[in-house]
């Protein structure tokens, strides 16, 4: 079940800037009896720094399979979007890439070299890879001015190479995120700024150390609708102008299509499909991607969409064997319940982890999976192992 499978880096013509290979994160569950406790275990796992050496399993030996052998590559001057529902592991993936949590297994490569583990190496890594968080209302310190937020990373990581003064560097930073004139913002506190301006300050803070990779975890979901596009366009400009590699994490597949060059779709901790943004949204190959697209708001649509594969994501403590989507999948075959699908090439650079793409299945493997008893289309069928509150953990920072 935990077999490594190639989950879709695009065919690398050159060495990607940041590459993840088979990245896996299991959070220990301390008393694994119910999914309720499992959710609790996630939080403790985040706080308690358990390394792989200590064993990822908790006392009961159960773990939350938050991220399971995810491979992806971030290239220079490209935006890669990770799309998924809450609980799909997309934020954990960002934290893994930022090295805020230690992976249970897998490897991170920066410029093709494994990342160093020493303290100095971590600091050097932080200089190259920076993160923007979801909620600009809580990610800025309310007792400090904008200038402080931007000065700190410069002081910690050393001044600008160009030998400019701190103030000049900060003013230039604010201009890069289109907060001009800079001196109007320097002395402001976060509460004096609008949501969009706050998020721009957060982005400027991440850009202060001139990183080459920017990880943006739901950067616009807390913002007003009319200013979201401004932030998305800013990220797009930064990617183009400064050749940043950007990872854009979102639950909104339409915005991923708008901003990203590549889309990676995650479900229950695994990558199910990846490929060029337009291809993934126009010709989705994986049934889960198809479900996501049919559920997304679309004013162009006539009449109500048909949802195929309703229900809730599985428990990540005891994920289904085989393909994790198979209990919901309308096309489930015998093989889906037993073996995890490897990534199949659908087209150039378009990979789908689905047995439907396999060409050499035996008749027995391809036979439709017998529907299990008790009408699994009912929404509460899967909810017995649905993580309580799973729907609202998209914004843990706001509470």
């Amino acid at each position, binding site marked *: 079940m935990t077999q490594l499978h190639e989950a879709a880096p695009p065919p690398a013509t050159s060495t990607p800037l940041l590459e993840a290979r088979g990245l896996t994160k299991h959070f220990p569950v301390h008393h694994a009896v119910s999914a309720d406790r499992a959710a609790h275990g996630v939080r403790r796992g985040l706080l308690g720094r358990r390394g792989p050496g200590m064993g990822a399993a908790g006392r009961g030996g159960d773990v939350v399979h938050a991220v399971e052998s995810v491979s992806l590559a971030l290239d220079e001057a490209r935006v890669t979007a990770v799309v998924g529902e809450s609980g799909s592991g997309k934020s954990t993936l960002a934290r893994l890439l930022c090295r805020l949590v230690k992976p249970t297994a897998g490897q991170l490569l920066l410029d093709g070299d494994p990342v160093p583990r020493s303290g100095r190496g971590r600091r050097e890594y932080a200089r190259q890879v920076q993160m923007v968080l979801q909620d600009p209302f809580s990610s800025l310190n309310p007792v400090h001015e904008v200038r402080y937020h931007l000065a700190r990373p410069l002081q910690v990581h050393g001044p600008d190479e160009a030998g400019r003064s701190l103030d000049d560097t900060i003013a230039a930073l604010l201009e890069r995120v289109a907060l001009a004139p800079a001196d109007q913002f320097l002395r402001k506190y976060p509460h004096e700024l609008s949501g969009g301006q706050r998020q721009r300050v957060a982005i400027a803070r991440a850009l202060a150390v001139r990183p080459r990779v920017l990880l943006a975890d739901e950067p616009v979901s807390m913002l007003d609708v009319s200013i979201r596009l401004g932030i998305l366009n800013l990220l797009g400009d930064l990617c183009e102008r400064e050749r940043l590699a950007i990872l854009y994490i979102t639950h909104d597949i339409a915005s991923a299509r708008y901003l990203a060059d590549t889309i990676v779709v995650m479900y229950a901790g695994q990558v199910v499909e990846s490929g060029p943004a337009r291809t993934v949204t126009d010709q989705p190959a994986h049934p889960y991607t198809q479900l996501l697209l049919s559920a997304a708001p679309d004013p162009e649509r006539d009449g109500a969409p048909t*949802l195929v594969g309703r229900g809730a994501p599985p428990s990540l403590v005891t994920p289904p064997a085989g393909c994790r989507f198979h209990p919901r999948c309308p096309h489930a075959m015998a093989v889906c319940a037993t073996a995890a699908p490897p990534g199949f090439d659908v087209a150039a650079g378009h990979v789908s982890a689905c047995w439907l793409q396999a060409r050499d299945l035996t008749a027995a493997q391809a036979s439709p999976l017998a529907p299990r008893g008790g009408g699994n289309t009912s929404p509460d069928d899967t909810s017995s192992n649905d993580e309580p509150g799973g*729907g609202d953990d998209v914004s843990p920072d706001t509470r």
Partner: protein
Amino acid sequence: MSVPAGHPLLEVRGLCADYGAGPDAVHAVIGADLVLHRGEVLGLAGESGSGKSTLAYAITRLLRAPGMITGGSVGYYPQPGTAVDLLSAEEGTLRVLRWSQISVVMQSAMNALNPVLSIGSQLTDVLHAHRRDMSKAARRARAADLLAMVGIAADRLGSHPHELSGGMRQRVMIAMALALEPQVVIMDEPTTALDVVTQREILQELTELRERLGFAVLFITHDLSLLIEIADSIAVMYAGRLVERAAAKALFRAPRHPYTLGLLSSFPGLHGPKQHLTGIPGSPPDLRRLPSGCVFHPRCSYVMDRCRTDAPALLPLAGARDGAGGMQRAAACWLQDGSAPPPPELAAPVPDLAGSQS
């Protein structure tokens, strides 16, 4: 969707609501005019702080201090010929009307359930308060029916809210709102915190229930792209004012207010070639320091001299009566006052609505 009967159910005229009093009062809603027809889904779109929730609470007289209703009228017409003025109604009348006739699904309804009571006792509580003659067993049976109606097994009656997922809690809230078969259901961002698949499931259930039970919905959300799909007609709010009102499809294909046009181009599409969208420059105004004239003028790309000094009223547009419920199209913009032809983006032809079913 069923054809909405033209009979108005809820009529809001010139409603104003403030927070605080005196010169420092913040005018959260100014002169809102809305008509909700029987069986209709009326969408209210706006950004945070645009006053859409305040408007909903003012309609139901649930606005808490320092919020105050400072003007206007809200008429409720349960049957043709009978009228209740909600703003002057006695507390006792309201107590009877609320929930049984007009119910509300609150914002972040997922957290609105009492964590220490079971779902069943919270559902039967409503029935106990409004249907005094119902036996305990009948109440219990009705609660089970309600859960089944929103797709939750009856054995969940004994569950506490923390044992349910977010989507299920949201479904319970909707079931509760429908417990007494109200005529009007006001939904304030009912699916905002949910995942997109769960959101779609709940919306589909809601559509089915509405067709079966025939209630009217005032659906409040910031997600205009969603509203266009599910609503019959849409009112757009900006900084406490209604700026445009139209049938959903007409609003989508042929917006008349620059803010609506900006909102529509803030949602990237799922089809077609990649287009560069600009959104709306600037950010929503601070209600304590509103710009002069038209409140949208600092962000408007069509701004004229007149916009800076005079506030446009929400005026019906000439010759633009459209299908759903006979709602008159209206926009609050000087470009649409008829003195000069508006720019082509704001004068797109209204699509033929007879063909569409909304």
